[in-house]
């Protein structure tokens, strides 16, 4: 640590940081624009000027840009120096010459970094009397609104979009005061990380378009810490609501997971809760014909009698539902009659992944670990589409080599432009193995595009090469062996090698191969090796830990008459099993009870339906792909008839007289019971403070301190202010009453600090700028690693495909493959229609060209779509996007043999 003197006071500072970071970390206010903790410094905006003195005798000093000067031991600077203060104020003045006075109509107003910095510098009157320059704005797609007149040319947008996130279609045009940030012509911003521009932009140039559709000021929204449930990474979010609907999702900093950035699926998928067709009332099939809407009590009573009259009850939960909801169903139906709602094959693959994560040295890799890896082998996953935040981390991992190279030349990491210039585009090794083209191919050293079996074989070959340490290639090697040797050599050379795998190809062999590579590396002395796993859904891992039955065994129980009443929660069985199987199951059932928050094909068949609260409307826990248990809280108290699934199940228990009172009256009760029943999940209680937590006897407010919510919205019913809803599940209040002190990171509902109204107030919520959350990153990791359990596998034998047969493999779309976000209008707009991917050679052989129509038969199902040529795919493979909502066939057991229909 270095000693730093700022305005006569002494501070400890990290010498690897710059003066701006040190000043902010010390809790001082120093304005800035172009610097960003994740993007580093470029010294473009001149806003963070301070006076630096040579030593204690130096009375003059000189003005320097704090973001461009490294911390040195004994450095003396002054922030309060009058000349430096005036300098900073004139920087804002000249930025303001072209900035419009449209704060009252600007979406950023009230949470604008430019406003905050203007106030902080003291600039308050302007002498510029000429015309302001104006621009034409562009249409940028459904996620972002563009208002270029507000731009202050800090260049953060292009630095994030192109340099950090690898985008190609946002540029900086023209020069001096005409600099324009946009696309080369109007159109959708292609990167799946574009939404971050709304937070990266210090003012209102890029703003959230979905928020604009139902706009509310930051101070008028009630917010709560939430978890993204659109993939298995478990990014932390802040969900904000007003008038009973979620208005937007913001990033909630988690040092080890999402850091400063979310993907667009996570940021804009929230509107599944605002879908116009969302079922929001309990329904009974028996009263459907009469057209009457039954009362909730009526529906619950009916469900109670269904269960009491049942010959046997089974329950199906879901990997997209919370742990509590799954557990409540398990407790209702019993272990033998409960399934987490995935097919046996998927369950086996998930089991292999969990075993691999338990075994991973040092525990499963966090996103932060991924960012810091310097050689990566992605085995059978397409992170850009299945876990986008991990893909963004992988884009940083290939930069590690240039950061180390720069460090050798004594260029600090934060000196972004210098590090990049020195690297000249040099990238660290990223090897990827996935059957089709991926967006990471452009940064990959090698891409192995073969069948799932071949990918597993490559993995085992790499493990063998590491074990034998035979990295020298011989001419007798097959291409696969050559590639394996190259990959093994890169992994062995790295300081922190990483293997990424997952369940995307539904192959146990691939996961076993990844395990083999990791253990070979560990044996070869690479104790720093890490393994990252990607699961299919937000709570796949958590649900798996409840050890339910496979879906097929529940089906069998119904078909053999053991059970005749089924409760399905948050799960569309038509996406899990062949249609014919589900149809047969429904025919055989005497009663079907469905609980869900989105309209699904299954809800139509329900004898009784209960509307579930969405993640933003409920409390619960999820376990992410790193085995980290995390808690989410209600951002709003849902409408009268909406409850979390676990809450509904508790109410059902009362109705069928299995319990005198609701066994799950609140979240803490169900958490305690679950911890007692499943020792492995005991740690989940520590993921966040319980409902009894208080700061000086006060709850944590969901409304910001400037909440002005006393409106006349309910005045036609009563002129009296209604009592805010009570929250028995969380230590948070639905009002602005409560502690003004900073809560633990798991309970942070909004970022605000005096003088910092924008999301940049986050600096005050970290132990040091860009460092861990104050009080430690939230959540609790359940897998310490190193637990040996599963025997080592071997590659399965390739099934010989006849030349006219194709192997259909599942492909994923970041916008389209996730069930929940498909119900969000903006995400749906970005999803692409169903198309088969195949190589030009295969297309030639079938006499097809790009855009032609093709019909396939896979098992019993027939599917027709257009053909799209994939430049890297190997012959006899055909990629089929899964999970899309506009297809007639929502379930295909892929990979599978496919036959071309005439």
């Amino acid at each position, binding site marked *: 640590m270095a000693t730093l003197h700022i305005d006569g006071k002494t501070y400890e500072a990290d010498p690897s940081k710059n003066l701006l970071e040190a000043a902010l970390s010390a809790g001082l206010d120093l304005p800035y624009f172009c610097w960003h903790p994740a993007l580093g410094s470029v010294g473009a905006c001149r806003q963070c000027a301070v006076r630096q003195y040579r030593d204690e005798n130096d009375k003059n000093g000189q003005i320097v840009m704090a973001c461009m000067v490294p911390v040195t031991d004994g450095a003396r600077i002054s922030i309060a120096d009058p000349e430096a203060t005036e300098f900073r104020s004139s920087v804002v003045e000249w930025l303001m010459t072209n900035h419009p006075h449209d704060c009252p109509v600007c979406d950023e107003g009230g949470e604008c970094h430019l406003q905050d910095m203007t106030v902080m510098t003291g600039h308050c009157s302007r002498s510029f009397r000429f015309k302001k320059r104006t621009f034409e704005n562009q249409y940028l797609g459904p996620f972002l609104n563009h208002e270029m007149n507000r731009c202050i040319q800090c260049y953060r947008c292009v630095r994030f979009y192109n340099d950090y996130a690898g985008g190609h*279609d946002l540029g*900086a*045009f*023209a*020069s001096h005061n005409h600099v324009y940030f946009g696309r*080369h012509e109007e159109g959708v911003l292609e990167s799946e990380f574009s939404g971050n521009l709304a937070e990266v932009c210090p003012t209102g140039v890029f703003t959230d378009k979905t928020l604009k559709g139902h706009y509310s000021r930051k101070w008028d929204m009630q917010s709560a810490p939430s978890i993204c449930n659109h993939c298995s990474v478990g990014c932390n979010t802040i969900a904000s609501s007003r008038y009973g609907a979620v208005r937007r999702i913001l990033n909630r900093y988690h040092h080890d997971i999402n850091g400063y950035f979310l993907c667009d699926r996570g940021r804009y998928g929230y509107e599944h809760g605002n879908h116009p067709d969302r079922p929001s009332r309990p329904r009974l099939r028996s009263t459907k014909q009469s057209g009457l809407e039954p009362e909730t009590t009526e529906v619950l009573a009916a469900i109670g009698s269904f269960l009491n009259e049942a010959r046997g009850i089974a329950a199906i939960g879901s990997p997209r539902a919370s742990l509590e909801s799954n557990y409540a169903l398990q407790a209702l139906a019993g272990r033998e009659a409960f399934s987490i709602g995935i097919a046996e094959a998927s369950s086996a693959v998930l089991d292999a992944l969990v075993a691999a994560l338990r075994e991973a040295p040092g525990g499963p890799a966090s996103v932060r670990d991924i960012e810091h890896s310097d050689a990566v082998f992605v085995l059978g996953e397409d992170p850009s589409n299945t876990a986008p935040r991990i893909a963004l981390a992988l884009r940083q991992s290939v930069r590690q080599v240039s950061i180390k190279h720069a460090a050798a030349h004594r260029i600090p990491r934060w000196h972004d432009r210098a590090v990049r210039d020195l690297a000249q585009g040099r990238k660290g090794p990223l090897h990827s193995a996935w059957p089709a083209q991926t967006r990471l191919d452009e940064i990959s050293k090698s891409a192995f595009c073969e069948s799932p079996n071949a990918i597993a074989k490559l993995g085992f070959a790499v493990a063998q090469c590491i074990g034998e340490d035979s990295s020298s290639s011989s001419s007798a090697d097959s291409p696969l062996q050559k590639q394996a040797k190259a990959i093994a050599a890169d992994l062995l050379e790295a300081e922190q090698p990483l293997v990424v795998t997952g369940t995307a190809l539904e192959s146990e062999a691939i996961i076993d191969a990844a395990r083999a590579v990791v253990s070979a590396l560990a044996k070869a002395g690479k104790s720093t090796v890490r393994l990252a796993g990607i699961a299919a859904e937000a709570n796949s891992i958590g649900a798996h830990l409840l050890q339910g039955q496979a879906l097929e065994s529940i089906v069998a129980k119904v078909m053999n008459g053991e059970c005749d009443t089924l409760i399905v929660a948050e799960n569309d069985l038509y996406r899990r099993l062949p249609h014919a199987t589900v149809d047969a199951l429904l025919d055989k059932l005497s009663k079907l009870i469905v609980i869900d928050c989105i309209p699904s094909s299954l809800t139509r068949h329900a004898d009784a339906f209960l509307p579930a609260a969405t993640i933003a409307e409920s409390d619960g826990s999820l376990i992410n792909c790193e085995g980290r248990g995390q808690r989410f809280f209600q951002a709003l108290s849902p409408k009268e008839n909406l409850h979390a699934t676990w809450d509904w199940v508790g109410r059902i228990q009362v109705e069928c007289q299995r319990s005198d009172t609701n066994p799950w009256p609140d979240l803490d009760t169900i958490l305690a019971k679950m911890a007692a029943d499943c020792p492995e999940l005991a740690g989940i209680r520590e993921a966040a403070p319980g409902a009894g937590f208080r700061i000086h006897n006060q709850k944590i407010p969901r409304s910001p301190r400037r909440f002005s919510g006393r409106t006349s919205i309910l005045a036609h019913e009563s002129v009296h202010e209604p009592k805010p809803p009570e929250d028995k599940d969380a230590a948070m209040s639905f009002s602005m009453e409560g502690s003004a002190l900073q809560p633990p990171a798991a309970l942070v509902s909004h970022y605000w600090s005096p003088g910092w109204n924008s999301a940049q107030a986050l600096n005050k919520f970290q132990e040091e700028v860009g460092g861990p959350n104050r009080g430690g990153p939230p959540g609790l990791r359940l897998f310490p690693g190193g637990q040996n359990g599963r025997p080592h596998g071997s590659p399965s034998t390739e099934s010989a495909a006849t030349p006219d047969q194709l192997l259909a493999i599942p492909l994923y779309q970041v916008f389209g493959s996730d069930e929940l976000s498909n119900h969000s209008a903006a995400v749906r707009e970005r999803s692409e229609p169903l198309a088969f991917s195949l190589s030009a050679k295969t297309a030639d052989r079938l006499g097809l060209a790009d855009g032609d129509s093709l019909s396939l038969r896979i098992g019993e199902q027939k599917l027709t779509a257009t053909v799209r040529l994939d430049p890297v795919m190997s012959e006899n493979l055909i990629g089929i996007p899964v999970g899309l909502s506009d297809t007639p066939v929502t379930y295909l057991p892929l990979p599978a043999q496919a036959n071309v229909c005439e």
Partner: protein
Amino acid sequence: MAFELSQETLDTIDKVIPRYPQRQSALMMILHAIQKEQGYLSLEAQEWVAERLEIAPIKVREVVTFYPFYREKPVGKHYIRVCRTLSCALNGSYKICDRLCQELDTKPGEISPDGKATVEFAECLASCGTAPVVMVDDDMYENLTEDDIVELARRIREEEIK
């Protein structure tokens, strides 16, 4: 593609590309050649260049918009740049521009109704000692007074300047 170039320009482009170790380095020379023929660089022209140099169209447009000497819109027969950087601005370049526009019956950035001229402001033309200055195509006019401007405009209107 509707976009077409003369054989002469195509030959120039073919000659320029191999001069550089990387194809994309020929970008500015190619843009000059196309602008010389067509008078400006349309979006189609930029996309054509991007394809030719195997780079994204956005990279071409970043360059075209960065340099004031590349134009994205057609101009009149004569392209007139009025310097407005400090020395010229202090010596009346805004007045000069107004007067020039008045004489040519046009507005800055637009083609005059007779198609003979486009007047635009430019940043420093590197002749501060003889401010204010105006460039008509490739020729510099220095130490200008309002009378000089009236005369210059007349010569442009009456096609005395070729």
